[in-house]
Structure formats: C-alpha cells, structure tokens
C-alpha cells in the first residue's frame, strides 16, 4: 500500500526544491537567449561552425535563417493519424502472448467526413514471443512490443498515405531507442524485430512521398536539446569546436563564471565550461521565448545517428501551437512549400483539438487499451487457454484476509 501521507510530505519538499531550481535556471535561459542572438548574428557562418564541430552531444544543423516564421492557415485537407497501445507479455500468464492495438483516424475536411477504426493484433507465434532482436533470440519484452507497436502504427499510415495530405504519428521518428548504431541496424537480417520496425517506417515515408503527402512525428512537451546544443557550439570559445580537446576539461583554461551563491545551496553545479552556461535548458523553453502562437522556428536537421539508416535524414521545426511548443519531425525530402503547408495543417489540427492534434487525440482514443479491456482480454485468455497461471499471479488476484 502506498503511504500517501509520506508521499504528500515529500511532494511539499519537491515543490520548494523545484521552485529553487527554476530560479537557478533563469540565468541559464537568459544565457541561451543571448547565445541565440549571437547565433543569429553569425549568419551563414553558423552552419559552417556547426558542421565542423566535433561534439559529444547531438547538434541541430540550421537549414533556414534563425527567426520566427508565421504559419499559413491551410486550405481544406485530409489528415490521417495513428496511435497504438499494447498488453505486454506476462510470464505469469499461462499463455505467452502480447497484444498490439492500433487506432487509425482519417478526417477529410473536404468531404466533411471521418473514419475511425482500431485494429488489434494478437502475437503468440514463437517468432513473436521469442523473436530475433539485434541478432539475438530473446523473450519479447517491453522494448520488443514497443517496436512492434511503432511498426504497426507506421503500417496503418502506409495504407492511408494515398488518400491523405498529412500523416501524423505520436512521438519521434528518430528511433534512437531501437539501435543507436545505423551500420549495425542496416546489417541485421530482415526478420529481426529492429529491421522490421525500420522497414515499416521507411515504407510509410516512401508511400507518403509517392502519394505527395507529408509524414510527421508530433512531439508534445519535447525534451530534446538539439538546438540548445547548437548554441553550445556558439558559446564555445574554441575554433574549431572539439569536445575531445576541451581546454576546460583538461585544465588548460578555467571558466570564470563562478556564482556568488555558495555551492552547498545550489541545485545545479556551477558551469565549469562556457557551454555549460546553457546546460539543462531544453529547446522548448528557448522557443517559448522566441515564438508567438502560430509561429514556427526555422528548419533544422537532426544529427541523430540512427537516421543514417533511413531513406532520408530527419528534419524538424518547433511550432508554437498556442498551448505549448511542439516539435515536428519529418523526412528531409519535404519541400519548403510542403513544410509550410504541413505546419499550417498541424497548427489547424491543434486548434481543432484544443491544443493537441485532434486526429492524434482520436487515434489515441481508438487505440488505447483501458483497464477494463485489459481485464476482459485476460479473462478471454484464461477462458480459452489451458493450464494454470503462476502461483504468484493467482495469489495476487485472490488475497487471503
């Protein structure tokens, strides 16, 4: 049982600590805003500096002038969105299996029509529950199911690509969690879970390109720091930037930005390098200062390594939806006009969805497996299956009082 009184006491302490942390972050956000102005002043030289930099963090490559861009309202359009949910495998259940449920929503604002469906897939074959993952056979775990779910979301959109202008997925298109090494990913056999997931993503973006639609990964509350990392490159005092030869790490140089506050009271360590002046600031916090509702950032290219295994690099912009700063990820082949119209459609989706794309929200509603459904699924499994569940599971379900 959860001791809520104890949790409440800890929450009070957390609240006051977080308020202090916000105070300490204030100057760092100022530093980021000032670095942004320096970056703007660099003009085209910024891109050269970024491309020459050897850093230990992912740095966004600027593809457009650093400024706010007004988003143009879209004409009538057709949008498809998919979102999935799952029942993870449970080794205490008698039958080893898992379930992936994908919601697909298509809204046509030309014909004023909507189609909302969900498609469950029950996976029980040995190749499902004991699959090849990164070249090794292993029991299907949370990551395998997440990969299968992402692939199923992509497959649903592949089928919808021809009849829609915008294809929305929930979350990043950068599958760093699948495998950070693009060469290893490419070398895997086609029946490997990782290869199949990548193949589904590639098929979706290819179908979208063929159909003239735009696939977008929509990230609400993004925590990415690619653009702030680009500012670290601006703040670095070295030419060229090379983290492996950092003079502040080696002790050749000292960074003099020592705070007046005593270290004991600080929640964040004092910056010991110029780049650390903007540490812990996320891109979203920066763009919340730089963008007004209905504006987007310039276009950037992600340097995430996994994208090297893709058919095209992944670009992104930040969009002020009115409710938050969202990150939109899309393939590099999207044209400037395509980007404009895509941002217009996404902004309109957020308007219609009270801050979050309405098609994605409804796809979630279609795809979600709620507690009741989960229990009903487990009951069905038990009624149709054979053999007992584990002693631990049956004890959990029948307490002795």
């Amino acid at each position, binding site marked *: 049982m959860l001791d809520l009184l104890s949790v409440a006491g800890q929450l009070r302490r957390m609240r006051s600590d977080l308020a202090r942390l916000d105070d300490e972050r204030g100057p760092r956000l100022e530093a980021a805003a000032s670095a942004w102005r320096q970056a703007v002043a660099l003009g085209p030289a910024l891109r050269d500096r970024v491309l020459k930099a050897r850093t230990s963090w992912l740095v966004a490559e600027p593809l457009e002038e650093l400024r706010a861009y007004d988003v143009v309202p879209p004409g009538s359009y057709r949008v498809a969105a998919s979102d999935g949910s799952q029942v993870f495998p449970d080794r205490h259940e008698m039958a080893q299996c898992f379930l992936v449920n994908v919601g697909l929503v298509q809204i*046509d*604002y030309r014909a004023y029509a909507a189609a*909302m469906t969900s498609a469950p897939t029950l996976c029980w074959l040995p190749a499902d529950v004991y699959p090849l993952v990164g070249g090794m056979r292993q029991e299907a775990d949370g990551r395998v199911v997440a990969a299968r779910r992402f692939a199923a979301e992509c497959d649903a959109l592949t089928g919808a690509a021809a009849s829609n202008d915008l294809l929305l997925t929930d979350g990043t298109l950068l599958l760093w969690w699948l495998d950070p090494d693009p060469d290893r990913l490419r070398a895997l056999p086609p029946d490997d879970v990782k290869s199949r997931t990548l193949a589904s993503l590639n098929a979706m973006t290819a179908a979208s390109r063929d159909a003239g639609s735009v696939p977008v990964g929509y990230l609400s509350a993004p925590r990415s720091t690619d653009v702030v990392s680009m500012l670290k490159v601006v703040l670095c005092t070295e030419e060229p930037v090379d983290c492996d030869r950092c003079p502040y790490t080696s002790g050749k140089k000292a960074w003099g930005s020592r705070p007046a506050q005593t270290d004991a009271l600080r929640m964040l360590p004092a910056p010991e390098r110029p780049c650390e002046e903007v540490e812990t600031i996320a891109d979203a916090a920066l763009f919340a200062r730089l963008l007004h509702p209905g504006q987007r950032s310039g276009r950037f290219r992600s340097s995430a390594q996994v994208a090297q295994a893709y058919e095209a690099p992944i670009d992104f912009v930040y969009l002020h939806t009115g409710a938050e700063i969202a990150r939109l990820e899309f393939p590099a082949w999207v044209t400037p006009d395509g980007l404009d119209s895509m941002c217009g459609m996404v902004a309109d989706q957020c308007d219609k969805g009270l801050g979050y794309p309405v098609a994605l929200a*409804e796809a979630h509603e279609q795809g979600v497996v*709620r507690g009741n459904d989960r229990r009903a699924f487990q009951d069905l499994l038990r009624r149709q299956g054979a053999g007992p569940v584990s002693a631990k599971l049956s004890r959990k379900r029948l307490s002795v009082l």
Partner: protein
Amino acid sequence: MNTVTRVGEIVEASTTRFRAVAPEAFVPPAFGSFVKAVSGARTVFAVVAHVEHASLDPSRRAIPLGRTWEELRREQPQVIDLLQTEFDALCVAFRDGDGPVAPYLPPVPPRVHDFVAVCESAEIRALTSDLSFVRTLGSSGLGVAGELVAAAIRAAADARDDRRSFLLRAGREVADLYRQDYEQACSILRRLGMRIAGDDHDHPAPASVAVRRESSR
C-alpha cells in the same frame, strides 16, 4: 418482418425493459411510440420510455465547443461519429410466431443484439386494443409515467381510423387507473386533448370524458 425500419439494436435487456442504440445519432424512435424486438420466433412489443443523446464512450463527456452544427460538420466531422443515441423501451406485450398478441410481459426478455423496429399499425392495434398497456406503463414507476401513458395512447390512437372513439375508451381507462389521483388523471387526459367534468384547467379541450371525481367503486 418485411419492410421494417430498424431503429436500434439492443445492448441491455431485462424482464421489464430493454435499452437499444439507434443506428444513427439523434435519430431515435419517438417517446411513447411502439417498437418491437424480434428475438428468434418471438416478437416482444415495447414502448419507448426514455431517449438519451450522449458520448459513445462512457468515460468521455461531450464539452461545449461553441460552434453551430454547420461549423461542427465542417471543422469537427469526427465529433458526430463519437456521439450516439440510446433509448429505453418498456415491454408491454409479445407474440410467439404468428400466434395472437399476448398483452403482458414475455417469459424471457429479448436478447442483447436483437434489432429493434417500429411497429406497424396493425400490430399497434392488436397489442393496444385491450388497453392493458395503459396499466403496464402507469405502474412503471417512472417519473414521467403520466407523460408516457399519454404519449403511448396518442400513438395507439394514431394507428386507428376511429381515433376519437379509441381516445375516449383509453380516457376512461386512465380515469379508472388514476381514480385515487385526480390531478394525474386530469393531467394525462389534458395531454390527450380531453377534459374531465370539473377540471377547471384554463386550456379549452375539444373532447370531454365523463368521469366522476370520486371513485365509482
């Protein structure tokens, strides 16, 4: 059933009533109208007693969107697909095969997923001729029992050529049923376009039923 209009599909059923979902949102059968559920060889007749428009998903409530219906169709076409219309119907009679209509509750309720259709005029005449539906609906315990009785009587009268004589007969049944509740009797009869002798309600009425204020028994 030949040319039936399907107005719903049963999602819950009990001895006395069933709940059905209309195939299209906002298109329910009328309150007080006669419907039937064909459950295998048996047809169960019922009266629509409650209609509800709400979210398809019980865990989601509709929220005010500040748009006209035209704007909603244009800007939020999915919203209409997420709403549904449900109705409750009180069982009043049944018929096995081509047999006669039995004007009382069926031995078992219709099944979940049985379709619900509007009754044809001949069926309504057959199941309402002995007026027992008036008592079944009157004793339903619903807050709107009086309204329901009146609406069902009007629907039964509409299925007849001799509307007026049926209304008079049903009016007497109402007066007898509510002989201990003069106000309720008056209220129902007014809803049938009738007036009881001694009812001093302002509205003029085209027909009147001779009913004594006290019980005649």
